[in-house]
């Protein structure tokens, strides 16, 4: 292949270096440039052309496949919903280490919750926190429903001063961040007002014509407790903040639900307040964060994933083992028969290989059922009593029988191609040196076929641990794999973060195997029955 670099404008040099006159300087190409440069340029051009040919496909696979998977994996650590929905609460909690926080945190929570309710995201937040503290979902849903009635201040304020219900007056007080009004300097109310104005505008209404929401008024009432900056006081005059009858917001929350007064929900918010979380990975390993921030096992009733991972691995190993046991003799027979017969028998391997997965799974479903063909035959032959038909489906046995059948060709094909390359003369030599049949096979033939076993096993194992369809259809509950759990979390429980974390763990495992396979066999050496 070395002469492939000589494409391009270089004419064949008859005799090469030997024909070169001894007195000449660096060897020159036909166009007068030094040959080394010319070759380099040609090589570069060749590399570029190869990359240009590959680029469209690489781009296609990256965009349609690799990127989506990376994007999904990001979900496994994404926790932005908590800090983005409860920004004020998270900030106030950071300053309050007591197990059940005090008034400032509840004030922050009221505003956050009111805004979240307006944006209809409080239920999603509740769902998120519910993964970490059971009860959060109902707590947030109920609080969101009632948060409108939490308002102790809004009615008082409107009664004291009609301007409080006037959008135009508020606009003048607050101004915009670029052109600040007299109340811009206050702590809570400007941000609350901006939020409300943005939500109102987004709903297609003019904030100038609308009465600000109750929670905007509450924010202002909370701001008016201390001494006011002079420009704020003069803008609000004659409104007198001292006339407001005050009450702790904390009590209103506790009255709505006593759980707000327990440490549970606050622990959950504290532990999961960052934009990223290890929570889903911990859940995928049946663990969780303790209130102290350590990692502890989940309660026994919630542990399932490690068990499923182990079951997936063990069953995949069993299936791989069966594939070796059944595949080795067949591959050996095929490799030792004359090509004509072998090609004919190969059809028996290739037909299942080419037959739809669903067809093969339906076949097993039909065969293995209690009223199915195999049980019928056993009953007819008198091996099994009619009332004691074997249960071979919707359990582990069903999954193993069907998956071994489906994956067996993936074992036979690489084994066969390795065995084809073992020279028969080695075994004959062993025999002539006095080895008996078994020794000749075990000491001479078998070691040479090990690469085929390795290639086939890794391939079968990789395919097995990711299986979904067959376990779903013939596995019942005791024969399902981790993939089925991932599908459950995506389409039924909608806990996408956990699904992504489980997927990431499975993917890491598969990629390690893939890498090993590439090392041992080389991915371009995969044989597909051609």
């Amino acid at each position: 292949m070395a002469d492939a670099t000589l494409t391009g404008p270089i004419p064949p040099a008859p005799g090469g270096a030997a024909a070169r006159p001894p007195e000449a300087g660096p060897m020159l190409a036909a166009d007068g440039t030094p040959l080394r440069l010319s070759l380099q340029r040609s090589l570069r051009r060749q590399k570029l052309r190869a990359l240009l040919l590959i680029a469209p496909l690489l781009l296609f696979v990256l965009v349609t496949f690799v990127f989506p998977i990376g994007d999904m994996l990001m979900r496994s650590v994404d926790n932005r919903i908590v800090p983005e929905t409860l920004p004020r609460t998270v900030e106030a909690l950071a300053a309050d280490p007591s197990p059940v926080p005090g008034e400032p945190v509840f004030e922050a929570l009221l505003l956050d919750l009111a805004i979240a309710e307006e944006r209809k995201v409080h239920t999603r937040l509740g769902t998120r926190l519910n993964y970490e503290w059971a009860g959060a979902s109902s707590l947030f849903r109920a609080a969101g429903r009632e948060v409108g009635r939490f308002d102790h201040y809004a009615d008082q304020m409107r009664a004291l001063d009609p301007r409080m219900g006037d959008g135009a007056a508020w606009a003048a007080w607050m101004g915009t961040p670029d052109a600040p009004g007299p109340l811009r300097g206050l702590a809570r109310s400007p941000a609350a007002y901006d939020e409300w104005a943005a939500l109102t505008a987004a709903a297609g209404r003019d904030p100038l014509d609308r009465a600000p929401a109750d929670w905007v008024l509450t924010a202002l009432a909370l701001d008016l407790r201390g001494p006011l900056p002079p420009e704020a006081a003069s803008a609000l005059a004659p409104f007198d903040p001292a006339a407001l009858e005050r009450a702790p917001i904390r009590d209103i929350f506790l009255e709505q639900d006593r759980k707000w007064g327990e440490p549970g929900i606050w622990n959950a918010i504290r532990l999961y307040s960052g934009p990223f979380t290890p929570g889903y990975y911990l859940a995928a390993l049946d663990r969780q964060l303790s209130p102290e921030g350590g990692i502890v096992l989940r309660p026994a009733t919630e542990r399932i994933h490690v068990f499923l991972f182990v079951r997936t691995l063990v069953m995949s190993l069993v299936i791989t083992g069966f594939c070796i046991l059944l595949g080795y003799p067949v591959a050996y027979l095929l490799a030792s028969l004359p090509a004509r017969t072998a090609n004919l028998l190969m059809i028996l391997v290739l037909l299942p290989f080419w037959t739809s997965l669903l067809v093969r799974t339906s076949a097993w479903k039909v065969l293995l059922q209690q009223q199915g063909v195999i049980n019928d035959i056993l009953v007819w032959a008198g091996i099994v009593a009619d009332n004691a038909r074997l249960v071979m489906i919707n359990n582990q046995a069903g999954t193993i029988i069907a998956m071994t059948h489906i994956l067996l060709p993936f074992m036979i094909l690489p084994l066969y191609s390795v065995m084809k390359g073992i020279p028969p003369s080695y075994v004959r030599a062993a025999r002539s040196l006095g080895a008996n049949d078994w020794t000749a096979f075990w000491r001479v033939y078998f070691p040479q076929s090990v690469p085929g076993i390795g290639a086939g096993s890794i391939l079968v194992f990789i395919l097995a641990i990711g299986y979904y369809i067959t376990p779903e259809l013939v596995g019942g509950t005791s024969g399902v794999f981790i993939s089925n759990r991932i599908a459950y979390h995506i389409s039924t429980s909608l806990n996408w973060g956990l699904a992504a974390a489980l997927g990431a763990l499975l993917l890491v495992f598969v990629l390690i195997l893939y890498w090993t396979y590439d090392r041992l066999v080389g991915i371009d050496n995969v044989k597909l029955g051609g």
Partner: protein
Amino acid sequence: MALPAYASAGQRIWHYGFRILCGLIFFYLIAPILVIIPLSFNAQNFFTFTPEMLALDPAGYSLRHYRDFFTNIDWQLPLWNSLKIAPMATLIAVTLGTLAAVGLSQSHVPFRRAIMAVLISPMIVPLIISAAGMYFFYSRIGLQGTYWGVVLAHAALGIPFVIITVTATLVGFDRSLTRAAASLGAGPLRTFWRVQLPLILPGVIAGGLFAFVTSFDEVVVVMFMGAAGQKTLPWQMFTGLREQISPTILAAATVLVAVSVVLLAVLELLRRRNERLRGLAPS
């Protein structure tokens, strides 16, 4: 592996024992596929052989499940969806895949190993993970539940097979042929169309068949990616198997077995043609 005349009794037993064992394994491989064919002609709504069928009574057999398969909209719509999705996905996979395989088979490709690993990954990554990732991403860009979303996803899944088969064919391709074409004045495009492509065509077709079957058989990704309007045949079979609807599934399965027999025959012909060409070409 013929048995020599001087073989001992033990060797004889082992010889025939081994063949019987292999026969049983072949039986395990092929019997499940063959058994559904007679069952699909069942006159009853059962998934097993009725006494009439075992007695070879013509009354026990009928074409009713085939009639159902070919007339019922619940089966016809998925069948047509499959037939619309698979060729388009195959076209994309084969076009891009063949180009890339030609690029990959050049003698100096930077990062060849890494590129290869990325291109083969759709075959290795568990389908449920691919399906989940594509579902989230495609719904964000509005392709979830559309024809093109399913086609793009299936094309990505079929690409590894095209790459593997076409690069394997290119290994045996004699490079001096392209140089000969170039020296006779053909440009790179003309060389590709008139010299290289006809010679690697068996590999390209084989890769295309793989890509087609991948899309035609695929059920996990399409269940996540597709809406009811994109329901494919395997999807319908999956729902049918879950809900135990009717033996029409077996009729559908038999039709699919017939399709795979045809595919296998085409591949075998290609393999023979390839062997013949290789036998003629000095390598």
